[in-house]
C-alpha cells in the first residue's frame, strides 16, 4: 500500500498512488514517506482522482464497456510536511526526493507528528471528503486518536455550533477528563434541561460506532464519582426526571455574604450605565448596617423607600459619593430586585462558597435551567468567581479548576468591557499561572463578550454557519463546516496547530442515547 512522491509543487509535496491502492486517501490523512531510516510525516491537504488512460467517449456512446484497464484510477495527493524524523544536525532539511514511497502513518507516527501528550485528552482525528466526514484510520483500520495537551484547559476554550451538534457532550467529556485525570475541580452552569445534571450516571448507548471509539481509546462509560448539583431552593425537580436526590442540594443566596459586585448579575436586562451604581449603593448600605443578620428584604425596603432616588455610594476602593438615579433606571432596578428576592435568604437553601467547589476530583453543577434561573446564576456565578480568584490568588487553594459556562452571553449581557466582565476577565487572563480554565460554549461565537475573544486559545466549531466561522480564518468550504455530523468539529487547538478536523468521543457520563 503506497503512494509515490512525484516532487514538490508550490510548497506542497505531490504524490501519486501506486497500483495496489484502490481508493482515495481523504484530506487530513497522515502519510509517512520513508527514506531509509528517515521518515517524513506529511498531511494530505488535497486529494483527487485521475484516470491516466481516459477511456474513449466513443465507447460510452456505443454503450460498450470498454477495457477494464482503461478504468484505472490514480489518487493524486498534495500534502504538507508536518514533521521530519531524522537525525540530521547540520541545520538543513532533507529533500523529499521523487520516487520515495509513502504509506499511511501509524497511530504512533501521527501522535509523534502532532506532539501528542501522553496522558493527554484523547480525541479522534477526522477528515471531510465528498461531503462526508469520517474518523481517520490507520492501515489496520484502527481509528486514529491523539492526546491533546491538558494545558489547553488553562488557555481557555470556546465551543460553538448549531443546536444538537455536540457542544454539551464535548463539555462533559472535557469536564470528566479534568476531574479524573487532572484531579481538579469542575464548576459548570447548567442552563438547559437536564444537560449536565446526570453526570453521576454512566452514559448509555447501543451505537456500535461509539462503543468502538471508546474501545479505541481504552475507556468504558462511567459516572463521575464526586458529583454535586446545586439548585435554587425555591425550585424543585419533577419526579419524572428520575434523579438521584443524593446528588442534589438546594441553595440560596445570602445577602450578608454576597460580594456587592455580584449584584450586577441582577441587572441583566438593563442597559443603563447608571444601573452599574447598584453595587456601590448596596455596599454603602451594607457598610452602614449596625447589626449582622440582615436580609435581602431590608435592602429592598431601603431601596424602594428612597423615592427621591438619591443614594449614597461606596465603591470598592472606599470612595464615598452621592448619586441620583434617573427615574427609569430606578424603576428597573426596583423591579429586578423584587424578582430576585426569592433567591435570597431561604433557610432551606445553603449558601455555597468556593469551599464547596474547590475540591479535588469533584464536579459541581449549578442548575439554573429553571424559570428566572439565569438571574440567580448570574449573581451566584459572579460571587463564586470572585471567591475562586481570591482563594487562588491568596494561595488558600491549589486545586486546578475548570469553569464551564454554557451560553455565557446570558450571564454577561451587555458586558462589553473588562469592568463589566469583572472576575471572568481576570480569570481568563491569569488562567495558566493559577490553573484556572474556562470553557465557553455557545451556538454563535459572536455571542462571546468581545473582551474575551482574544484570550481564548482553543476554538472548537461543531456544525456551524459558514459565514459565522469564516472570520476565524479557517480555510474550509461551506459544505465542510455546515454538514459536520454530531460530535465532529473543526478546531484550532492551542499547541497542536497541525490538527484541524476532530471527533470527540462521546462523554463517558451523562449521555443517554
Amino acid at each position: 500500500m503506497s503512494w509515490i512522491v512525484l516532487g514538490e509543487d508550490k510548497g506542497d509535496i505531490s504524490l501519486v498512488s501506486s497500483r495496489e491502492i484502490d481508493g482515495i486517501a481523504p484530506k487530513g490523512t497522515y502519510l509517512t514517506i520513508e527514506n531509509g531510516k528517515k521518515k517524513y510525516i506529511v498531511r494530505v491537504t488535497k486529494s483527487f482522482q485521475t484516470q491516466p488512460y481516459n477511456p474513449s467517449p466513443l465507447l460510452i456512446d456505443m454503450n460498450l464497456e470498454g477495457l477494464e484497464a482503461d478504468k484505472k484510477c490514480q489518487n493524486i495527493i498534495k500534502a504538507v510536511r508536518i514533521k521530519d524524523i531524522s537525525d540530521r544536525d547540520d541545520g538543513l532539511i532533507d529533500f523529499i526526493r521523487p520516487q520515495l514511497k509513502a504509506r499511511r502513518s501509524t497511530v504512533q507516527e501521527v501522535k509523534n507528528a502532532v506532539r501528542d501528550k501522553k496522558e493527554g485528552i484523547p480525541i479522534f482525528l477526522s477528515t471531510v471528503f465528498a461531503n462526508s466526514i469520517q474518523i481517520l484510520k490507520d492501515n489496520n483500520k484502527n481509528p486514529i486518536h491523539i492526546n491533546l495537551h491538558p494545558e489547553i484547559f488553562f488557555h481557555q476554550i470556546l465551543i460553538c455550533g448549531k443546536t444538537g451538534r455536540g457542544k454539551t457532550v464535548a463539555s462533559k467529556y472535557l469536564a470528566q477528563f479534568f476531574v479524573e485525570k487532572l484531579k481538579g475541580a469542575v464548576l459548570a452552569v447548567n442552563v438547559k434541561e437536564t444537560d449536565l445534571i446526570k453526570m453521576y450516571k454512566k452514559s448509555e448507548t447501543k451505537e456500535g460506532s461509539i462503543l468502538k471509539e471508546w474501545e479505541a481509546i481504552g475507556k468504558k462509560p462511567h459516572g463521575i464519582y464526586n458529583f454535586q448539583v446545586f439548585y435554587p431552593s425555591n425550585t424543585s425537580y419533577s419526579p419524572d426526571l428520575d434523579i438521584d436526590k443524593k446528588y442534589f442540594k438546594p441553595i440560596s443566596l445570602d445577602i450578608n455574604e454576597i460580594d456587592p459586585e455580584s449584584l450586577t448579575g441582577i441587572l441583566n436586562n438593563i442597559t443603563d450605565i447608571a444601573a452599574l451604581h447598584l453595587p456601590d449603593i448596596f455596599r454603602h448600605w451594607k457598610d452602614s448596617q449596625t447589626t449582622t443578620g440582615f436580609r435581602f428584604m431590608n435592602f429592598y425596603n431601603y431601596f424602594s423607600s428612597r423615592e427621591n432616588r438619591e443614594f449614597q455610594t461606596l465603591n470598592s476602593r472606599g470612595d464615598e459619593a452621592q448619586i441620583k438615579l434617573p427615574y427609569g433606571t430606578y424603576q428597573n432596578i426596583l423591579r429586578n430586585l423584587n424578582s430576585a428576592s426569592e433567591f435570597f435568604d431561604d433557610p432551606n437553601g445553603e449558601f455555597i462558597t468556593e469551599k464547596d467547589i474547590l475540591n479535588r476530583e469533584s464536579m459541581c453543577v449549578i442548575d439554573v435551567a429553571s424559570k428566572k434561573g439565569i438571574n440567580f446564576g448570574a449573581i451566584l456565578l459572579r460571587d463564586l468567581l470572585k471567591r475562586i480568584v481570591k482563594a487562588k490568588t491568596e494561595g488558600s487553594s491549589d486545586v486546578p479548576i475548570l469553569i464551564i459556562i454554557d451560553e455565557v452571553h446570558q450571564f454577561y449581557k451587555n458586558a462589553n468591557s473588562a469592568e463589566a466582565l469583572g472576575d471572568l476577565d481576570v480569570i481568563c487572563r491569569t488562567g495558566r499561572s493559577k490553573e484556572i480554565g474556562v470553557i465557553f460554549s455557545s451556538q454563535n461565537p459572536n455571542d462571546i463578550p468581545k473582551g474575551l475573544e482574544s484570550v481564548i486559545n482553543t476554538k472548537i466549531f461543531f456544525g456551524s454557519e459558514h459565514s459565522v466561522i469564516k472570520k476565524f480564518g479557517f480555510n474550509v468550504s461551506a459544505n465542510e463546516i455546515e454538514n459536520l455530523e454530531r460530535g465532529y468539529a473543526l478546531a484550532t487547538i492551542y499547541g497542536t496547530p497541525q490538527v484541524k478536523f476532530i471527533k470527540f468521543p462521546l462523554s463517558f457520563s451523562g449521555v443517554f442515547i
Partner: protein
Amino acid sequence: MHKFQNRIIIDPNFFLSVEELSKKNIDLSSNFEKFPLISAEFLNEGNLYFNNIVAENLFVEKGQKITSDYIIGAYDESINKYNGLAGNAYLISHTYIYIGKKDYIPAIYLSFFFFSRSKELAVKNTNLIYSNDLESEARKVIHDQMLEFLKENSIKNSILLIDGPIFTGSLTTKTIDFNEYMVEKNILPIYIVKNSISNLVCDNVFSLKHKYNSDMHWAYKFLKPGQRSNFFIYEEKKSKRRAKAFCYLKTFDISPVRIEVYKDIYLGKQELVEDLMHLIYFLIIAQGEKQNPQPRPIIIAESFSRESIKLFNLNKLMRKIGIEGIMNQNRNMVNF
C-alpha cells in the same frame, strides 16, 4: 570511459499480473489449412493471392469479447536522435505492454548507441558503432533490438500488436525467424500499418489497375466505416518466405489501416486471424481518435515509451560518456 548500461525496466507485477488473467490459450501449432486460391495474378516482384475481393462487416461487440478471451499485448518504440558532428546518437525506448486485469503492464528496454564514421572513436567506446550508412544501420540495430526484446519479453499465449509493417527494408530473415519463434510460443504478432503508398492490390488486380493512387486509396473508397477487406497473401518471388497476409480495415471515415500477419500464421489460423479483425476494430474505437486510428494498446505502449525516454537526458549522457563538445544542439524525436 563510461559505458551506458542499457537497461530493462520491468513492472514489478509483470509476471504476477499474467497469472491472474487466466485467459484462453492460443494454439498456433495446428496444421496449415489450405488457402482456397481462386485467383492469383502476378507481377514482376511477387505474387498476390486472394479469393474474392469483398468487404466484411466488423462488430465491436465481437471485438470486445475477444479482449476478455485472450491476453493482448502491444509494442511501440520511441527514439531520441541527436545529429552530432562526430556521428549520430540514439536513445531508444522499446516498450511492450499487455492489458492486465485492471491496468496496462509495461516492460521497457532503454538502449543507447552512437554511430560514427570515425573508426577511431568507435574503437574506444562500446556503445559506439562504426558505420558508413548511419541512418540505415541505425534502423537495422533498432529493428534487431526490437525483435530480441519482444522474443524475450512477450507473454506466452498472447496476441501481439505491433505498429508498423511486418517487413521493412532490412532483416527479412530475422523477421521470419522472429515470427516462427513467436508461433512456437503461441504468440500471434499482428502488424498495423497506418500510412502506406503500397500498391500491391491495385497493381496486381487487373480490374483496379490505374484507377487508384494507392491501395489505401482503393480501400478507402471500397470500404465503409466498420468494414474490412478480404485477406490477400503476398509472396515475393525472390524469397518465398518473405510472405505475408494482409487486409485493409476501416474504422472511421478516413484512411484505413492495413493489417499484416505472417503468411504461415494466417494459413494455419485463418479463422482466428479473421476474428481478430473485430478485436482490432474494437481497439481502434476504444482509442477513439478519429484522426489517428490506432489500436488502443499501441497508443498506450507509445505513451509509456515516450515517458520512459524522458527519464534520460541525452545531452548529459553524451557528456558522461565522453563525447562532449562535438554535438550540436539539434534535438528531435523521431518515430520510425
